[in-house]
């Protein structure tokens, strides 16, 4: 009986293969297990062994041709047999097989026991079926590695044989508490080597993390908001370095003025809130939200203040900040931050924001690119104040410098007006008295 040789299927994703080389010519005798041809796929190049012995009667698909899996590529006949020659491409059984030699491509550990073509006696197949066993796991001891009935029953009784492993690899696996039967050996005859164990250890670091954190609740909400913001808007960040020496001096003055009142505590951030909310009034488009098909320009400035919490972050809002004085802003900001940490903020207190301020100075960050809080148009990022040599009135002197970064939605406002806003804001941060004009 002539036997059709088909393009094998290596793994789930293989659709076609290119025959790159025939190791035999028509008329050559072929032994079962001998290399017959070489196949190149998108992933690997490997050799295909003959599943039967006989004479290579016909090469249907010559080297250099790509054909789908299951295509008849050759015919092996018994000596003297003269079957009809095959014309054109024909499909036959799809043989799912593992590549014959060379093992998996480097760096791609494969899992043992995946589908592969197995040589087995009919009795072995029957027994395996009865015992509901995967034949491909059973090592064959018959001719050419054929699995016999006794191989199946032995495997059933004794379980899998221990894998071949070098002493060093074994010691490394033992100390790392790795299951050697899960490691694919790439050494001689599939022996597990040091390199294989090192690879398994590296994979485990990734697959078995030390800790698993739930991705739910606040974490999940933040993730969704941030991701949606980045996906749905056209964000752009502008950066300016600002000389805040005057503001720092002004702040010292206020602190000195109110040093006897315990309830009054003012920070630089409070001043930035005040100044930003005043400047926003002059650039209405920066104090807007994009909702549906409309850009809503807001009359009042509701300033969101990002507060870091152990489990995430929350943005309470100072409503009508543009109307409030410094001491009031300072007090409200402190109360809101306290409530945020206690988890007692009301829905109102975290809603209605028109612009946001985020300050990372306490982490000694110089500058960053904040992410917009949709649907707001702008967010101001504030870095730390650092004393540096700077040119002031034509001379180098030590000045308190700070970076301010403005992220804005380019769908709503273009670069030039946004830059104009940042420029004015920077100027007012440098000279706080300008907000009075």
């Amino acid at each position, binding site marked *: 009986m002539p036997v059709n040789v088909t393009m094998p299927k290596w793994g789930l994703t293989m659709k076609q293969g290119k025959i790159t080389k025939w190791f035999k010519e028509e008329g050559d005798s072929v032994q079962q297990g001998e290399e017959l041809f070489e196949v190149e796929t998108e992933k690997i190049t490997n050799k295909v062994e003959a599943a039967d012995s006989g004479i290579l009667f016909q090469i249907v698909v010559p080297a250099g041709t790509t054909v789908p899996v299951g295509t008849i590529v050759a015919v092996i006949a018994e000596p003297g047999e003269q079957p009809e020659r095959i014309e054109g491409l024909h499909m036959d059984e799809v043989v799912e097989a593992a590549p014959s030699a060379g093992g998996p491509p480097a760096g791609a550990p494969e899992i043992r026991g995946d589908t592969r073509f197995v040589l087995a006696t009919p009795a072995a197949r029957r027994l395996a079926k009865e015992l509901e066993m995967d034949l491909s796991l059973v090592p064959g001891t018959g001719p050419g590695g054929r699995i016999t009935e006794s191989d199946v029953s032995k495997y059933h009784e004794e379980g899998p044989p221990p894998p071949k492993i070098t*002493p060093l690899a074994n010691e490394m696996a033992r*100390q790392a508490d790795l299951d050697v039967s899960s490691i694919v050996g790439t050494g001689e005859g599939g022996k597990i080597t040091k390199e294989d164990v090192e690879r398994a250890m590296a994979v485990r670091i990734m697959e078995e993390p030390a800790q698993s954190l739930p991705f739910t609740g606040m974490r999940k909400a933040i993730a969704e908001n941030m991701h949606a913001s980045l996906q749905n808007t056209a964000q752009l960040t502008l950066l300016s370095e600002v000389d805040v020496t005057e503001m720092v001096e002004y702040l010292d003055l206020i602190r000195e003025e109110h040093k006897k009142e315990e309830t009054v505590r003012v920070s630089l951030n409070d001043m930035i809130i005040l100044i930003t909310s005043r400047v926003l009034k002059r650039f209405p488009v920066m104090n807007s939200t994009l909702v549906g098909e409309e850009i809503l320009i807001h009359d009042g400035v509701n300033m969101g203040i990002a507060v870091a919490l152990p489990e995430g972050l929350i943005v309470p809002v100072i409503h009508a900040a543009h109307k409030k004085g410094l001491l009031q802003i300072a007090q409200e900001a402190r109360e809101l931050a306290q409530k945020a940490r206690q988890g007692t903020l009301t829905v109102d207190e975290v809603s209605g924001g028109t612009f946001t301020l985020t300050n990372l100075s306490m982490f000694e960050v110089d500058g960053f690119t904040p992410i917009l809080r949709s649907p707001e148009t702008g967010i101001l990022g504030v870095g730390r104040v650092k004393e540096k040599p700077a040119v002031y009135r034509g001379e180098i002197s030590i000045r308190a410098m700070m970076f301010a970064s403005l992220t804005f939605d380019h769908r709503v406002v273009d670069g030039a007006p946004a830059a104009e806003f940042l420029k004015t804001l920077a100027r007012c941060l440098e000279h706080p008295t300008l907000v009075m004009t």
Partner: protein
Amino acid sequence: MYDVIVIGGGPGGYAAAIRASQLDGKVALVESAEVGGTCVNRGCIPTKIWLHAAHLLQGIRTGDEFGIKASVQELDFQTIVHRKNGVSGDIRMGMEGLLGNNNVEIIRDWAVLKSPKEVNVNGTILEAKKIILATGSSLSVPDVPGLEEAALTTDQVLEMTEVPASVLIWGALGPIEVEMATLLNIFGCKVVLISESRRLLPREDGETSQRLAQGFREQGVEVLSRFTLESVQKSERGYTCLLSGPEERTVDVEKVLISSRKPNTANLGLEQLGLRLKEDDGIQVNEQLETSVDGIYAIGDVTGGWMLSHASSSMAITAAENAMGNSRKFSSHLVPRAIWTLPEVGAVGLSEEEAEQQGLDVKVGDFPYSINGLAMSRNEMDGAVKIISDARYGEILGVHIVGAHATELVGEAVLAMQLEATARELAKSIRAHPTFSENVVEAARDAARWALYLPRQ
């Protein structure tokens, strides 16, 4: 169209051609001079004949320790040269026969690369799917004023019919230099061995260097370190060598040995193809031994580094298999070093210093020859086996043997390392008694802290 064209017919090219042919490749080997390369004609093999003669002479001289009182009547160097030529010729003939037997076409001409798939051989363009460069190395005279005139090359040593009264050997003292020192010294030449670096055999374990230097001093060789040869001037009886280093000094000798080698990379068309070279002028290759140009492989001395015959012939297997479509890596850490000095040196893997530099936590095992039964019986008690192992897993990182038959014993270490045996397992291995190989097992036991035949620590 050939599957593989191999350029160079030394131990590397020869092995590569046969391996490619075994894998059903159509192979040509291009060699402009004699097959066998440096190894067979001017290196490993001829020096072993000379060194065996030296060892015989040494044996006769020390025979009275065993009651054999013999005197040497004559040293006929012509006979040694003759024997050397005979053996080299026999090996060449065997190689040519085996190449033919493997259907390798031998082309006797100079080859120049024209493209990654074309070789120009005297005007004829041969096409090949892959090319393996195995062009070896040649002697190079260091740029020292006056040196050329005083030169005695290693090639000339192997053809000598009389021994110079004194020779200065200078440079980075590697295997070639110390073997030449051994050979010349036994035949009565006054040898001055001058190391440019801190010690001789700078790439070996520090203890190996120490043991060998001590051996040389006992044999009457003068050993100096950290000196540079500044100039050589003709003197009445030979040459005056001016040295700089810890102090200025002069040494008067009859000849100065020329032994340093450089990779043969010139006139092969490598520059036009943009083949990258390393700092030591060897061709740069990756782990698969492929050069910076796809489809061109390089093996052996032409890749610089250790320049050992067996490194070349083992690289040949990897390169040939890869040229025939595989993708195997060359295990350079498993290349042993064998040096035929008195006593011999055999080593593989990392030295103790290298292992520590790599930040490894090492456990060292030592066993001296002096308490080995066979060594005592034969009065060959100089030397020791030193095993460097990793403290955590017991991995054998390096084995350093100085002593009788070290060049053979190192094979045990290579096998153990290749099969990834741990020091603990080597410690449980059985050796015949009395043999030198017992030392290897006992050193492994010492690494595991249970050496049976050493005093308790």
